[in-house]
């Protein structure tokens, strides 16, 4: 999320209630906008159905969308952090012109590898050829949206992101409705895809307007994949770790094959997705906090070191940073905790509203707690990234991935009453490790900063 900080600080600097609100809104959109929009989209589409729009069609469509989002996130993950890092470095050196070139080169990479994965993954499914072609296109478009987002948030253009998603999502819904009568399920997906394409081209236009055209390939960017291999690995594996329990449940004994080989697990997915929605406010709050207040402390801390201050005043500054971190974490815990608690108590009502089955209530409850853990985990990871502790984050990522895999498989074996516990405990375990590293690295911050310096 490189770069959002400046814009947020500017907004908060205006010191009005409205600007503060919009700061939080932007942060929410940037941190979880696409996810939010797609869930919203699916809900709107799900609430209204045509005559003749079968339950099967509905499920094929829904599963397609979920697959596309899940796998694009995992797939683009390897590029996300590396490119963010690359752009941050370039901006720091004042070479903003490079951006478009880097965007083109990474687009080429995403499209080529994405086509192979998309076609390879979707081709075996028993769906019409037209549907598969559209699905592959959707896969590529969504992947490209993630990529464009990275670049746009690097240039701090959040307004465009929000506008693009608002317009694009509306077109997706409208398009799906309009094209279904003409082309059936294929049209439904095509309509949705057109809306997503609008989002992509909107973002692309914004990028093109922002930067002068340059050469297409930027080879220096690719060296970053070698130099920062941990980032590539973390980006991909962390997203995989988030999704692995869902993916595993698609293959659980009690999962269901919609059509070969499009699988879904009705019991598991719903509660998990809805629980996940509860973390949106937290992510927004945290983003604002870390990119404004924490950044300031972090900046001041290093400014003190560089401006040749004595250790006592550096430690004094650190005290402020630790205090701020504790404050923020407490605040998050209060906000997210109360929200989670509220949802826990109101789980029955919630289930009724969104049309889940009452037997899913315990699963929703444990998923709510799991989501709380997961968002705290993300917070810890972002802090660790601030200190550039890539090895530690990689370690946590692996713990998350392995524990989520293992415990999810275990919970599947133990039966329905244990569903969700795997995910929840995995988040808990990873969170404990992450907090250990955060607290250790803040305590040892000078040691990490100095002693890690290469010798001469």
């Amino acid at each position, binding site marked *: 999320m490189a770069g959002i900080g400046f814009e947020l600080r500017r907004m908060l600097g205006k010191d009005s209630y409205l600007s503060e609100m919009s700061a939080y809104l932007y942060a929410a959109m940037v941190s979880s906008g696409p996810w939010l929009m797609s869930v919203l989209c699916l809900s709107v589409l799900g609430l209204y159905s045509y005559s003749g729009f079968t339950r099967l069609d509905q499920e094929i469509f829904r599963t397609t969308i979920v697959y596309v989002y899940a796998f694009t996130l995992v797939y683009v993950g390897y590029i996300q952090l590396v490119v963010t890092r690359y752009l941050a470095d370039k901006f720091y050196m004042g070479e903003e012109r490079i951006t478009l070139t880097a965007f083109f080169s990474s687009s080429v990479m995403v499209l080529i590898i994405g086509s192979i994965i998309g076609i390879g993954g979707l081709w075996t499914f028993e769906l019409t050829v037209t549907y598969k072609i559209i699905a592959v296109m959707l896969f590529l478009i969504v992947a490209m949206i993630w990529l464009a987002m990275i670049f746009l948030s690097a240039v701090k253009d959040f307004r465009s992101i929000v506008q693009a998603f608002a317009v694009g999502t509306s077109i997706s819904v409208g398009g799906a409705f309009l094209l279904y009568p003409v082309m059936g399920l294929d049209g439904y997906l095509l309509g949705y895809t057109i809306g997503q394409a609008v989002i992509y081209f909107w973002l692309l236009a914004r990028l093109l307007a922002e930067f002068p055209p340059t050469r297409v390939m930027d080879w220096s960017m690719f060296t970053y994949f070698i130099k920062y291999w941990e980032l590539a690995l973390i980006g991909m594996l962390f997203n995989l770790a988030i999704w692995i329990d869902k993916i595993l449940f698609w293959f659980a004994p009690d999962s269901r094959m919609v059509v070969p080989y499009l699988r879904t697990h009705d019991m598991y997915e719903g509660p998990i997705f809805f629980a996940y929605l509860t973390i949106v406010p937290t992510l927004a709050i945290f983003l604002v906090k870390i990119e404004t207040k924490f950044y300031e402390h972090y900046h001041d801390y290093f400014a003190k*070191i*560089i401006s*040749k*201050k*004595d*250790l*006592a005043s*550096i*430690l004094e500054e650190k005290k402020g940073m630790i205090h701020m971190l504790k404050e923020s974490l407490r605040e998050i815990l209060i906000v997210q905790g109360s929200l989670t608690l509220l949802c826990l108590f109101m789980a029955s009502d919630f289930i009724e509203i969104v049309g889940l089955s009452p037997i899913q209530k315990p699963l929703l409850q444990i998923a709510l707690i799991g989501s709380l853990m997961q968002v705290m985990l993300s917070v810890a990871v972002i802090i660790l990234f601030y200190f550039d502790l890539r090895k530690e984050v990689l370690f946590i990522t692996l713990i998350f991935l392995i524990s989520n895999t293992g415990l999810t498989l275990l919970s599947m074996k133990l039966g329905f009453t244990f569903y969700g516990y795997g995910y929840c405990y995995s988040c808990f375990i990873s969170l404990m490790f992450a907090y250990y590293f955060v607290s250790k690295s803040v305590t*040892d911050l*000078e*040691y990490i900063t*100095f*002693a*890690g310096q*290469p*010798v*001469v």
Partner: protein
Amino acid sequence: MHSKDEKEYDVCLLLEGTYPFVAGGVSSWIHNLIKGMPDLTFTAVCILATSKEKAEYRYEVPDNFVDLKVVYLHDPIEVSKNPFKKISANNIERLKKFHKQLDNESAGNMTEMVDLFRNNKFPLGELMHGKKAWDLLVERYNVDENKESFIDYFWTYRFTHLPIFKMLPLDLPKAKVYHTISTGYAGLLGVVARVMTGRPLLLTEHGIYVKERKIEISQAEWVYRKKDERFRVDSKLGAFQTFWIRMFEQLGKMCYNYSSEIYTLYEGNKDLEILEGADPDKIKIIPNGISLDAFLGLKAADHDYKGQTEFAVGFVGRVVPIKDVKTFLRACKMVALKIDKLKVYIMGPTEEDEEYYEECVNLMKLLHLEDVVEFTGKVKVTDYLPNLDVIVLTSISEAQPLVIMEANCAGIPAVASDVGSCRELLEGRTVSDKALGPSGIVTKVADPVGTGEAILTILQKPILRKKMSLAGIERVKTFYRESDLNETYLKIYRKYMNMDDLE
């Protein structure tokens, strides 16, 4: 540390930034020493700054100087941490204790430290990146009281310690005697050799290393000082300059402590060494010698001192500020006013400091000395010596200037500022030396009037001039023969080579 069949040398020299890669007074001295003892085998460990600068031999090294080993002090190194090699709590305590000893102005127990380093108890990766070493650094910084820039403390700590960490585990050639020609890093190697092998360590200091570093560091721009400190009128040193200097002082003290004997060129140096913590009883003065053949008899024995009406004054040295040519020119003005037929030769390269040379030329014109003074540039001094009546040296700093020894040897009286061993060379050092009488006049530093008067005294008193001439020749013959110098060192080497291992 050494296997039995390893080659053993008679003498291992420990050299820092000198022979055979850098030309200069000390290098020539080493060259002549080795050449003068063809029966002994010499080897050396030579410390140079970086391998980036090409290390080329500047001397045709004698056959008995073999298997030179070169060590680069500031070459970049990759250090990686090995998670299985930590520093034990016990050893870090020892390191702390060692630092405390140094803080209390003692030289510390190097035997233990060298042992620990050589047995890899302090892996470099841990010292540079490890937590325990970090905690020690912070403890030594002293958060509660220290108000100095921490980032500079950190880098100063690293830069001062890294070369030492590199020196301590080095493999040294096996030798019967180790002889270091300076304290500092070469001196540290000497200490390591002494501690590891039990063989005696000898130290010869031409210039006083610690003093030279002090001058260098106090002038160094790259050592960080707080802004207000730099512009302060008094010359108090910044904390980081003090840090560096203290490190060199401590290295010096260690080397003095572990040396069996310390040799230096003249009394003034001895006093400085004592001031830096050397045991006075260990210090012996061995002045440099010169080869007499080139200079003896240059002045005709039947030279008519009394009937002389034309005079020539010589100045031998590079035209640079440290030689204080301007004082010399002003003194010449005084002389020129009294003596009609005067010629002054300034013999030495002028291109080293063009700006200063120009200033000197301007001063010469200002004093209307164009007809009297001649800048000869670099010349063969022996061509001029026979015609000179007095040689002048106005240097601000010298050790044991060859110019004066050569003047003595050639039978030409000298006027020299009171620096280095000039007084010893002109008035004698020991009782028997003093009895020979003066071979010139010593003046104050930067004193044109005193210098002028001294020159006039010599030129206007033919009998004194002749006496001085004879005293100079006798002095060099008796006390400053190069062959005697080699003999002295040969005796020393033999004595220590045959000595049993020390504990």
